[in-house]
């Protein structure tokens, strides 16, 4: 069946890899990959533009989830939501960045496992509440927190939201991924109970929690070590 498979579209992947390796502007890399992939699949310019345009309109529901909450979040930030989150966490003496994020990881993963994926998210939870609280908890202990540590804590807050969501939602029976897997397996003539797929996701979900929680635990030690070194200098 060699002759039936067109390997040229793989050039599109090469453009992506090369583009990111050369640190070109991501949007330009994507457009270049679109052009190369289209031409490799022997589309002409008008056909390629039509395919891109139809896809662009079809996928325009994606940015809604990011953009619609911004007006409310922006307004609340203007009136001190971040400052309030930081002040609240400073009052809890035992709170550290790592412990706070472990609690958030648990809440995010468990709620996603029950299908409640809308608790959390980067625009409406991480930016206004979780990241400022994680940063605030470190700042209470080390008022001279460095920018490098600040960025690391913020990136870890975003990562925690992702890990919790990804490895929680797949344990929920009615989740899209489970439906997708069932449909594809059925197409191949294999009948699988969605409940079994959801249950067999649990070992990985637990492993993911342990691995990421351990990293969050280590983050506290990392912050302490970095700030100690800073004091000596």
């Amino acid at each position: 069946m060699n002759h039936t498979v067109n390997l040229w579209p793989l050039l599109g992947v090469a453009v992506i890899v090369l583009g990111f390796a050369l640190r070109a502007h991501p949007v330009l890399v994507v457009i270049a990959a679109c052009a190369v992939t289209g031409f490799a699949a022997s589309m002409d310019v008008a056909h390629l533009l039509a395919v891109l345009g139809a896809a662009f309109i079809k996928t325009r529901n994606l940015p809604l989830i990011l953009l619609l909450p911004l007006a409310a979040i922006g307004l609340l930030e203007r009136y001190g939501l971040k400052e309030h989150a930081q002040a609240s966490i400073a009052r809890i003496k035992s709170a550290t960045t790592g412990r706070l994020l472990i609690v958030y990881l648990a809440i995010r993963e468990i709620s996603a496992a029950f299908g409640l994926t809308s608790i959390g998210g980067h625009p409406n939870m991480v930016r206004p509440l979780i990241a400022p609280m994680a940063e605030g908890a470190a700042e209470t202990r080390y008022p001279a927190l460095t920018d490098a540590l600040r960025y690391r804590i913020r990136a870890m807050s975003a990562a925690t939201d992702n890990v919790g969501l990804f490895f929680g939602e797949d344990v929920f029976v009615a989740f899209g991924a489970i439906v997708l897997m069932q449909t594809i397996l059925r197409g191949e003539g294999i009948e699988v109970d969605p409940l079994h797929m959801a249950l067999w996701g649990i070992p990985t979900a637990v492993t993911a929690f342990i691995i990421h929680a351990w990293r969050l635990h280590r983050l506290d030690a990392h912050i302490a070590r970095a700030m100690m070194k800073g004091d000596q200098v």
Partner: protein
Amino acid sequence: MILKLDFFYLVLGAMLLIIAVMALRDPHNPKRYSSALFWALYAMVYLAGDWLSPVAAGALMVVMALIAGFGGVTLGRYSERSPDQRRDSAQRLGHKLLIPALIIPVTTMIGSTLLKDVNFDGLFLLDPKNTTLVSLGCGSLFAVATACWLTRATPLQAMRESRRLVDHLGWAVVLPHMLAVLGLLFTEAGMGKAVAHVVTSYINMDVKLVAVAVYCVGMALFTIIMGNGFAAFPVIAGGVGIPVLVGVYHANPAIMAAIGMFSAYCGTLMTPMAANFNIVPAALLELPDKNAVVKIQVATALPILLANIALLYFLLNM
């Protein structure tokens, strides 16, 4: 249905158009004309998406990408309040500030679970195909209204604040959207077949551990390329999972599928192509390195991927 997704397309379109006008009138934005054009074009996608011909929409996308790619979308000036002013109002408003922030997830949850089947003689309250997005849209509008009421700010101020956030995101706003387009194009061009062909013809899978590893790593790698585990699953399950793991090694398909999808998610954590999970948060959190989130996630994703290979190897025939 009473509340359609189209309504929120118009809301977002209007919001982007206002942002374009504000950018045009901001003399502190060094590239206000190209910035305004960029946001106005994006507004067209939402306001006129149903009337644009596919070729016109494609050309529009390319123009937007070129404006963004050559640095034509820049920051303006935003009359922000001082940290002291913010601390004062934080103290005055206290926990009340959390109410509007929590309205968004709570409304989304209620809408997508309790209200999803509500209908009047077959006329659904919420668009049945898009309950989550429509509920999120309603939640966002309730949240703005509550936030305005609580802070005595005007809706215009809310628009200025969304412009501040959208401008800080800049091109990161459209990257996930354009990547989704690339993903669809990859599918159309037969990328899946090409990858499955390469994987299955050049790797010897006579050893069970190798086959399991190829399956899990293949899921992750293909997700890294496509930026989406849903695109990787059909390809790798169809190319390796079903013929080799189930066909040759008699794997339990439920285990093969579940752990395969999680291996794909490990890939999602490691790729800038999954922009809305990895690049957008870096922009939202104002990190100087746009890949900071991907970099920090690698150390979580790789151990989970290894654990997946081990789990699948030992659980394969359960």
